[in-house]
């Protein structure tokens, strides 16, 4: 296991280098520059030149890249162009809402997916299965922002059950915090729930067709026990994989949800940074998100290997 881990960690390094090169190149290629964006109303060529020099933006592009990489190797992710704050601080502040949102969304997704997935597998190819599948699919057949707006109008404006926008930290104020995250978490959770439902359904079906299940049935074990105890254990593996991957993706990917609900999360940070051409911030955040994704992936692989001894060494 140790060698496996080390091998994977070493393999991660070239990936990260590629990510840094990729994001650097990409954001520097986008038309427009951060100083124009900052000084929207008061363009002054002298000030612009000075700021450019101060921020090192007047250097040739490979020099800028090397400088950034150099600082990176010392653990310095640089400072945001717009507000001069260290990138790490900016991200650190924004991780919490994104993480809370992601976890809450996963919780909702699981609450929806488990009953639906198990029911669908148990009643395969009956109308129950079809309805369950269709219901689950709602989450992934509508654009995110549409679901968000519909929820806002229903629960926020018409029924006034839940706040429409803004963020309160559940760790500081549990009731209001959870209320403020409820609608965004449902928005994300519906889509996630759909994916998990389908994954669970198919993995349960596969598990149910295994030999040991047939043996159990022959021994007279009830169907529900088979489903919940035998099939579920093995059926969980792909679900965990999917969950892990989604979690990694949710942190930086809940952009639209964060935007619509005005949540101060990481997704919104990076998109705003792209719009403002805030190079260090974009580069830093993308790198951090990539690292997070890779780490989560690695963790999932380890859990996967631990759960299913057949696939420990590839």
């Amino acid at each position, binding site marked *: 296991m140790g060698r496996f881990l080390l091998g994977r960690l070493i393999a991660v390094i070239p990936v990260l280098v590629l990510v840094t090169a990729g994001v650097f190149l990409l954001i520097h290629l986008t038309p*427009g520059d951060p100083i124009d*964006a*900052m000084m929207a109303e008061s*363009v002054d060529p002298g*000030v612009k030149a000075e700021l450019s020099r101060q921020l090192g933006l007047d250097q040739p592009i490979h020099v800028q890249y090397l400088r950034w990489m150099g600082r990176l190797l010392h653990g310095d992710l640089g400072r945001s162009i717009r507000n001069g704050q260290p990138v790490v601080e900016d991200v650190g502040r924004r991780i919490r809402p994104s993480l809370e949102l992601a976890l809450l969304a996963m919780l909702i997704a699981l609450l929806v997916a488990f009953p639906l997935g198990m029911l669908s597998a148990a009643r395969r190819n009956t109308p129950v299965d079809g309805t369950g599948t269709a219901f689950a699919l709602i989450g992934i057949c509508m654009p995110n922002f549409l679901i968000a707006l519909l929820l806002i109008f229903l629960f*926020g404006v018409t029924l*006034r059950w839940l706040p*429409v926008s803004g963020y309160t930290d559940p760790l500081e104020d549990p009731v209001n915090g959870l209320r403020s995250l409820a609608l965004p978490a449902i928005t994300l959770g519906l889509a996630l729930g759909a994916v998990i439902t389908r994954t669970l359904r198919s993995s349960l079906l596969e598990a149910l067709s295994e030999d040991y299940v047939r043996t159990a049935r022959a021994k007279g074990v009830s169907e529900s026990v088979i489903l919940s105890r035998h099939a579920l254990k093995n059926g969980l593996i792909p679900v965990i994989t999917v969950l892990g991957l989604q979690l990694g993706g949710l942190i930086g990917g809940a952009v639209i949800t964060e935007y619509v609900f005005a949540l101060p999360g990481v997704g919104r940070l990076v998109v705003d940074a792209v719009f*403002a051409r805030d190079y260090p911030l974009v580069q830093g955040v993308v790198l951090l998100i990539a690292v997070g994704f890779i780490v989560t992936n690695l963790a999932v692989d380890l859990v996967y290997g631990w759960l299913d001894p057949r696939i420990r060494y590839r």
Partner: protein
Amino acid sequence: MDVGESPGLDLNARGASRRSFLRWCAAASGALTPAVARGLRGAPEALAQVAPKRGGTLRVGFYIEAATMDPHLSGSKIDRQVYHNLYDPLLVLDVKLGLQPGLAESWTQPDGKTLVFKLQRGVKFHDGTDFNAEVAKFNFNRMRTDPKSVRKGETANIESVDVVDSHTIRLNLRRPDASLLAALTDRAGMMVSPKVVQERGPDLERNARGAGTGPFEFVEWVKDDHILLKRNDNYWNKQTGPYLDQIRYRPIPDDTVKLASLQSGEIDVMDYVQPRDVAAVKADKKVVVVDVPSLAQFAYVMNHTKPPFNNKALRQAVISALDIDQIVKGVWLGVGVPSNGPIPPSSWAYDSTIPTEKRDLVKVKAKLAEGGQPSGFTFSVTTNNLPILVQEAEVMQAQLAEAGITMKIKLVDAAALLSDGNNKNHEMISYQWSGRPDPDGNTFQFFKTGLPLNWSGISNPKIDALLDKSREVSDRNERKKIFSDLTRLLHEEASMAFIVHPIEPKAFSPRVQGYEPIPDGMMRFKSVWLK
């Protein structure tokens, strides 16, 4: 009338609030005599029968996050909204865009190149520092010389600042500049505590604690979440407030969600109601709408420096093919007036005798022929990806198509738009200027040869001369005439398609009282209180 005894003001909170609101609106639109209007600022008790209550947190929703808390380094419009509550400028605007004393108690102009300000006494910054002439000088020098200062353009004409005595300063100008006083009502006149600047340095951009003299003090700024201000109980001018305990600004990027937040009671103030929502919001009894005529100018700029619009006839063809009235009616839904030039109707320099451009398909044909493209031509317009601008571009596209001109639409985000404009990398580009109280602010930097914001590349010596003259002359009537001549010349040059002078409707919860809508669109909350 006895306060609170009038039968007109009964227990129906909504009705009462609406009525007192409408009074403020009447005042804002100039329906009252100037004397009463001036009296309004100093003695609201004369009109509002209910005495203002202290307390409460005003929750304000904005469309975008602020960029910096340092007024000298600020380049974006939203920052100003917070500044007008946090900092004081030397002069302030009244509802008729007149200049009133701010931190400057009075001012004189002994000659064209000298301005002498007598400063208010007894003013302290939130950190306890005294405000005096030395501080004012420090601020002006900072604006003129700090490498990151964005106020260099506005203060370019100030040669030097002298401290005459502890509360008097003299600005020595390079050239006469009639627009300078108006510039001092905004960021260029805002005073920051030198102690904060020296001790905190660049951190001032994020943390403005103790930095201003305004009716509210900075508490905290959590990026993309909220900015919190609290009442300054030691404010130097307690005549009409401040009353609110706190102000909490929240950026809510999606304006449907912002409106929903107001309607569900999560915020009390909305900075801007989209034209498409205005009718519904006005019909909503739970919300009060105030139409604030703005200083803004929305237009499309054509690039003189390259084809096709280096050809004046083709520019004229495009302008004559557009139906501006239809655009204002169909896209802006009447929330604004067709524009006849860069100067808005709320300005004293507005000349209503200058007609807006009218559609004339016959003229289009003639101009197309004159320009060597009798069967039409194709060009592209670069515009911002905002829903209303997309809609406007689509309508323009259809109008031009009827006249045989093909317009392609290129949507870009704000940073790319600014870049394209500044680098003249466009054929026609959308241009939205939030406006300034002095007509100079809507004209000089856009039409003078060689200036960076001159996105059209226009270079007309007559226009340059008029622009310079408008600053040298101080008599308003004379200046007005100069600006009228300028506008006529601009029509003749046909470098911009002027579309609309928008109205900026703001929406409030009925609890909000005492709001004074000033046409620069800035929301000043000193006199505001919550029911």
